[in-house]
């Protein structure tokens, strides 16, 4: 205990330094370095084998003319604009019902409804890929049983249908996280607010939109913020189910970038893929700042603080 080394090891400042070292080291190496270098590689040409060559803004000039990329980005917005409101409002309404109308089965539903959200996305994607199979899938089997005569329609190979079909697994696996958050927020609304509204004869929709929504607005703002951040994020489902096809109908930026950087063609255009990443980052930052200005009317973005 009395050796010099022991005393050093047991001093307060060494404890602080040694205990923080792994955290700072791992964090910096694996989470900060990729973010910093994502501002460097976009200005290079890099195939991953020879050293990266600085090429200035040439990648960005290519991006400006890359029609496939902008089409993919449009698809991201398409899915975001269709799926986000469904995921949001379905979650809000169901959360309100499950909290405020405690039916016997509500408790079971809360657990069941959330289950798809924790299912591995690989499983959700593969399951739906087969569910949409024209001949053997459960989706057509169900529609046919309900009298909608779809025959053997192949949802994932029709360039129009596939865009809409993909929304089903996105919602199936995507809305329940919001539901849980809304349930928590709704439970925190003081019961007295509802009681006085009931005395005034407020209906359930009135209670939801005039009492609950204003009280949980802060939570909703945060959720909107995260949904914007995730705008280009989750592309696994598409990668697995359609790989962006057929004929680019479901191509999103994620799958496009994936193909450019790691595609089977053997051209690993890391510099160009990184440049796309940087553009996305800029777009996301601009949208989130605008969204927050819009929602807050001038208040600073406390989230980012």
């Amino acid at each position: 205990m009395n050796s010099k080394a022991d005393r050093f090891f047991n001093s307060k400042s060494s404890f602080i330094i040694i205990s923080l070292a792994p955290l700072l080291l791992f964090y910096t190496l694996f989470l900060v370095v990729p973010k910093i270098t994502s501002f460097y590689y976009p200005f290079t040409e890099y195939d991953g084998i020879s050293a990266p060559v600085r090429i200035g803004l040439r990648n960005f000039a290519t991006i400006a003319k890359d029609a496939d990329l902008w089409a993919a980005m449009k698809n991201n917005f398409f899915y975001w604009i269709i799926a986000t409101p469904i995921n949001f409002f379905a979650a809000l309404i169901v959360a309100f019902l499950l909290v405020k109308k405690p039916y016997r089965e509500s408790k079971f539903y809360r657990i069941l409804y959330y289950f798809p959200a924790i299912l591995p996305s690989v499983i959700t994607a593969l399951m739906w890929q087969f569910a949409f199979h024209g001949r053997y899938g459960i989706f057509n089997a169900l529609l046919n049983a309900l009298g909608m005569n779809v025959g053997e329609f192949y949802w994932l190979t029709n360039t129009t249908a596939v865009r809409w079909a993909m929304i089903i697994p996105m919602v199936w696996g995507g809305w329940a996280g919001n539901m849980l958050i809304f349930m928590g927020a709704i439970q925190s609304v003081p019961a007295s607010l509802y009681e006085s509204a009931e005395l005034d004869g407020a209906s359930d929709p009135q209670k939801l939109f005039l009492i609950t929504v204003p009280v949980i607005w802060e939570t909703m703002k945060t959720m909107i913020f995260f949904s914007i951040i995730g705008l280009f994020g989750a592309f696994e489902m598409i990668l697995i189910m359609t790989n962006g096809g057929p004929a680019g109908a479901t191509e999103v930026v994620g799958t496009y970038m994936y193909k450019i950087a790691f595609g089977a063609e053997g051209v690993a255009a890391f510099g160009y893929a990184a440049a796309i990443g940087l553009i996305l980052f800029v777009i996301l930052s601009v949208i989130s700042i605008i969204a927050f200005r819009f929602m807050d009317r001038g208040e600073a973005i406390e989230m980012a603080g």
Partner: protein
Amino acid sequence: MAEAAYKDSGVVKRLEVRDVVIRVLLALWALAIILPLIWVVYTSLKTNQEFFMGAWQLPKSMQWNNYYRAWTQLGIGQSFVNTIILITGAMLLNTFIVGLGCYTLARFDFKGRDIIYWYIIGSYFITGLNTMVTGYILMRKLGLLNSLFGLIINYGAAPIVFNTLILNAFMKGQPKELEEAAYIDGASYWQTFWYLGIPLARPALLTINVFNFMGYYNNFIKPLLYIRDPEKYPLSVAIYSMAQAMTYRADWVTLFAGFVIMMIPTILIYSIFQNQIIQNLNIGALKG
């Protein structure tokens, strides 16, 4: 009075009709979740001939053999072992890193503490796809590609920000008296950390590890990018590559058995740790 009673009953009836509609809609959604899952389960017990007879065709006799084939021939067994090694290693590493670091961040006053805290939390808001490529380049430069060890190291770091948020908040909330008593009794900082800090933080450590488990288990893109050899695949990538290979092998029922096998750990974890999973989304994730 009679009028009031009449009115009341009218209100009750109207509400009942609406309640019935609501309950039917909720039940339909429950069905929409259960039906595809049930379909996967009974398909996994069919023969391939029965598979080709359509989605409603139930198995005439249960083909448990499909599970055996999925485990051995499809290599689910091997990927299951890989997944266990991967997750165990990553959870231990992450708990060590975050547990030790947050203890100091939360329990000690020192110069630069707030800077370190915000340095870590700050990157939460710089997200996007921009690290998919640069993260890969980093892993290659470090020589960590195509190895479970490399993936463990990467996974150990991946949830640092989220876990620091949760653990730091939890550890800050604990009373100082016990620690002070320990120091007076002559305990070193290390002993106090190990015998007091860690046990007291057990609920929060459990919570972050439930989330770690699910994050690691579900992660698909990283192992897809970082692991090349099929015998090193964790379950998520293994099942994906099997599904692709089935285009040529057409042994669908065995693949479906693989789906079910991969769902089982999720179901187990969910039924055991429901409370951690459901509660934490309320407290941790969104208190901005």
